[in-house]
Structure formats: structure tokens, C-alpha cells
């Protein structure tokens, strides 16, 4: 599903030396995988997430999404792909304040070409167990509930790929476990999910763990199923 071939990403800051955030990263992620990308801060994992999510273009290398080379697409074509194929979950939730949960969830539909969008938002909220919070505003919801609204927003357009950047970083343990349980059930339903995290406990929920160090991919582990089961008990 995802194919990266020797991806480089170099930032040039005015008045500073160029920073090589990604250095020859190549990897394949198959449909239905649950993958964690780990690494220390500054290792380039956020940059990799932005490249995977089509939010940022690589300086060199090729990115194939479902066999299509997307490295050279224009901004509008990328926006369309993000809208239809990719769902995002962020550490800071990024919900619109003073706006109901339902309207937040329906935000991607605003930019969609789909004709039949009636009821999709409500169904996505039901899927994350928030059917009774449709009219609540972010300020009236707990952190865990806000992140569930954000997941519903990521799912509303039924994307192939779900990208989560430190999804439990702002949450207490209980809420974090809820969120991870949702990811596991989405994975069980066959969705492709990539979670970026620095937290080994979160990564332990995934069947495949990629490690980044200074912009290079240094490890690609597939822990035993037992670890996943142990994580489930936590």
C-alpha cells in the first residue's frame, strides 16, 4: 500500500546550516498493517509522518501510494488525496473550539466531492462510542473524549490509511488505553494504521515497530504476538 524509495528531506533554515531530517528512508507498509514509528525527538519521525500524510513533499526519492507515484503531485491533487485516502489524529486533537462534536467530525466532508454525506458524521461518532455527545463542544468534553471525536473525524471519509502522531501524548493512562483499544479494533477491522510515538508502551501495541535515528531507519522489528497480548492486559 505504501512504498517509500530512498526518501530524503532537507530543511534549509535562513542563516543556518541545512538540516537533513530524512536520509535515504525506504520502506513498505502493506494494507491492514498496524505500524509504530518510534525514535527520540529530532530523529525525523514527525517529518516521516508529514511525508506519509502528504503534508510535506520529500526533497528526493519516490513515494508510491497504492502503486501511484505521488511525489510530484500538485497541492490541489495532494489535498484531494488527503481528503479521500488519509485520516489524521494529532497529539493536540486540533478540534475547532466553540464548534459541536458533530460539526468537527463533519469538517473533512466540507472539502469532499462526495455527494451522499448525510449521516456520515453521526455514524463516525457512534463508531467511537460518542453517539450521546453529538452536540457537545470540545470544552465540554474530557481529553479522551476529544481525541475520540478527532478519531471519528479521521474516519468520516472512510480513508484507507490512518496516521496518528503521538495520539496518547496529552492523555492520562485510562484515556490512553481507551484510544489504543479503538486503534486495535480498527486494525482488526482491516484498516491500515501508522502511529508515531516516542512511548515504548504505545509501540508495544503494534505488530511492527520501525525505529528512526538521525533521519535513518535503523530497525524494523516484528515482535511476537505475545507482546501484543501482554499489551492488551495493561
Amino acid at each position: 500500500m505504501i512504498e517509500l524509495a530512498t526518501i530524503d528531506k532537507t530543511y534549509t533554515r535562513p542563516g543556518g546550516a541545512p538540516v537533513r531530517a530524512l536520509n535515504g528512508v525506504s520502506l513498505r507498509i502493506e494494507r491492514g498493517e498496524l505500524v509504530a514509528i518510534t525514535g527520540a525527538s529530532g530523529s525525523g519521525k514527525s517529518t516521516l509522518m508529514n511525508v506519509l500524510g502528504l503534508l510535506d513533499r520529500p526533497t528526493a526519492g519516490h513515494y508510491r501510494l497504492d502503486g501511484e507515484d505521488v511525489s510530484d503531485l500538485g497541492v490541489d491533487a495532494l489535498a484531494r488525496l488527503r481528503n479521500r485516502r488519509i485520516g489524521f489524529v494529532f497529539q493536540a486533537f486540533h478540534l475547532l473550539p466553540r464548534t459541536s462534536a458533530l460539526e468537527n467530525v463533519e469538517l473533512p466532508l466540507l472539502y469532499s466531492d462526495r455527494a451522499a454525506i448525510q449521516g456520515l458524521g453521526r455514524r463516525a461518532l457512534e463508531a467511537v462510542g460518542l453517539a450521546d455527545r453529538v452536540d457537545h463542544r470540545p470544552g465540554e468534553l474530557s481529553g479522551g473524549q476529544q481525541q475520540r471525536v478527532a478519531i471519528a473525524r479521521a474516519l468520516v471519509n472512510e480513508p484507507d490509511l490512518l496516521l496518528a502522531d503521538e495520539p496518547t501524548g496529552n492523555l492520562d493512562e485510562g484515556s490512553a488505553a481507551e484510544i489504543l483499544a479503538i486503534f486495535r479494533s480498527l486494525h482488526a477491522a482491516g484498516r491500515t494504521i501508522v502511529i508515531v510515538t516516542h512511548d515504548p508502551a504505545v509501540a508495544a501495541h503494534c505488530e511492527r515497530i520501525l525505529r528512526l535515528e538521525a533521519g535513518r531507519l535503523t530497525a524494523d522489528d516484528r515482535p511476537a504476538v505475545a507482546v501484543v497480548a501482554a499489551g492488551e492486559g495493561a
Partner: protein
Amino acid sequence: MRTARLLKHSLRSVGRYKLRSGFMMLGSLVGVAALTLVIAVGQGAERKLVSTVRQLFGGSSVLVIAGGGRLMGGPRGAPAGRMTLAEMEAVVKALPEVEAWDPQQGLAAEPVRHGDASATARVLGQSERTERVWNRSVTRGEPFDAAAVASSARVALIGETVARELFRDEDPLGGEIQIGGVRFRVVGLLERFGTDAHGMDRDNEVVVPISTLMRRVMNVDTIQAAKLLVKEPSRVEATAREVRRLLRDRHALAAGQPDDFTVITAVQVQRMVGKVERILFLFLPLVAAVSLVAGSVVSASLMLASVSARVAEIGLRRAVGARPGDIQTQFLLETALTALGGGLAGLVLGSAVAELVARRLALGGVFSWQALLAGIGAAAVTGLLAGVAPARRAARLQPADALR
């Protein structure tokens, strides 16, 4: 479809941030209100001026006033001059193209009494031809005739304001009034006139035979002014030149000496009105436009601040599929909607104040389509001016940077 959804979405977004939207609306509100007010009142004042001038002048009259430099823009310090009734009569006799004329003498503010009641009014002495020459008749009673003028009869025509102040509920016709110790009998009520271009209440007037006023009240042989009606409108300017030549002869003015009288025609008055109009229609809208630009700058800076505060929101919208054009459209719509809202409020406020001002100045109705269109146009321009820069900045943000 997509644009319609964006419009609905922007409308809700404007509604969610009421304080910010309110301040942004204030910008266009003040500008549009000022513009509407200026145009509506300006047009009302112009209509009033034109109708007053038409009422006073008609198309074909020459006004002669004693004293030089009486016309706006004329030389200052021009000599004051005597103009007698006798010489004016002689001048008119020498001009066959004059079909009718009326001399005028008057007291600007004279106490007028009836029994215990007293009022201060303008007292005018005129001839029996006044109704025809000044185009003002009586609504009740009868105007005085040539015999009354010839015999210096003590009869008077009074305006509505004078009638109300002196007679209250009493019927003024046949009543007695006193001017400077002379008793007059009220024989007619003057047609209502209202306020003239100078803001003077022309219903606060008493008209008596000019002979009576000159001999019995003022004891003078001069007149203040005379109005001449010319048969052929095309001969007005020529007649005015003739009047001037004859009067200069009679006053024995040498070449190079300025006139000690003033001759005014409709053409000159129109030129004067034109000067006033240029001020109203160039200078005042300029002032309004400046306040509009100021409002636009306020809106733009508030919107720019709003873009800076909503960087994360913009990043999120890009992440979930908004194209740069969608972001630009949204911010343009938000600015345009607030500008339009403020503009409509400004239109209502400006029109209401214009109505109040018009009522105070007795300008009559001042509703103006031009003011309405200018107001709406101004609101649109404010929105566009204020919206473009912030919307472009928002659209240029890179999603990865915005979400950091």
C-alpha cells in the same frame, strides 16, 4: 455545492466569534454610515436649494439689490449705495422687455404686536404685483391691490408662524396688528413657504404695501431690492446688462468705479449653486471615503490577527483536504460577511441620522437610491480591501508548518 457549503460554514464561523466579528463590523459600519449620511443629506440640501432658487427666481428674472458685492464670491468692501423707488421706476420704464416688477423694502426683525401677544418677524414692503412676481399668493383673504399701495393703506398679509404666535386660536383675518406704533388690519394669510436655503423661516413674515412701510413706518425713500420679470427667457442676460448700465448712469459712476448695487440673474445663481454642489459632492464624500479606508484597515488588521491566531486551524483544514483556494475563499467570505453585516447596519444608522438631520433642517424626505447603492458598494469594497491580504496569507501557509 462546495462553495455553498463553505459559505454556510463561514457564516457559522463568523457567528461563533461574536466579539471579533463585532469589532470588524464596526469598521465598515462607521464608514458606510458616514457615506450614507453625507450623500443623503447632501442630496436633500441640493434639492432644497434648487427648489428654493426656482421658487424665488423662476427661469427669467433679474434681481437688483442695493449695495455692491452682494453675490457670494463678489468683491468685498464694495460701496454701499442708495437705490430709490423713483429711479427703479424710471429704469423699468426704459426697459420694454420687463413684463412685471416688484420693489422691496423691509425690516429684518421687527416686533409685531396684537393685543398682549408679541412676536418678532420680518416685515416686508412690497407692491400689489408681489403675488405675480414672487410667485407667492394668499391662502385666505385677499392680497392688497394697486389702490391700497397708492393710498399707503394700513393692511397686512401675515405668514403662518406670525398668525400662530399672535392670534393662537383666534381668526387672524380682520384682526389688528401693530408694527412700530402703526396699526394694520390683517387682510390675508400668506401661502406656506417653509424654510429657505439660508435656514430662515419664511412663514415668519408680514407683507404690507411698500408705500406704507416706507412712509409711515421707516420714513425712507429707498428700496432694498427689486425683482424684474423678463418676457423672453433668452433676453434675461441682456436685460441685466441694460439695468446695470442705466443704474451706473443714474449713480454717475465713472469707468473703473465698482457698482454700488448688485444685479443677479438665474444664471449667476446657478453658478453659485454649482459651487456649493461641488463642495457637497467632492469634499464630503472624500471625508466619508477616508473613514471607509480607515475602517477597512481596522478590519484587515483584525483579520490578519485572526489568521495568526488560527494557524493550527488552517493546518488542520489543509490536512483534512482543504486546498489553498478553499482556505482563501473561507477567509475572504468571513471578511466579506462581516463587512456586509457592518455595512447594512451602517446603512440603517446613516439613513436614520440623515432622516433626523433632514427633519431638523426641514429638508423634506432624504431617502436616496444613490446613497443606498454607494453604501452597499462601499461595504463590498471595504470587505474586499480588508479580506484579500489576510486570506492570501492564510492560503500560503504550509500545512506541515501550520500543524507544528
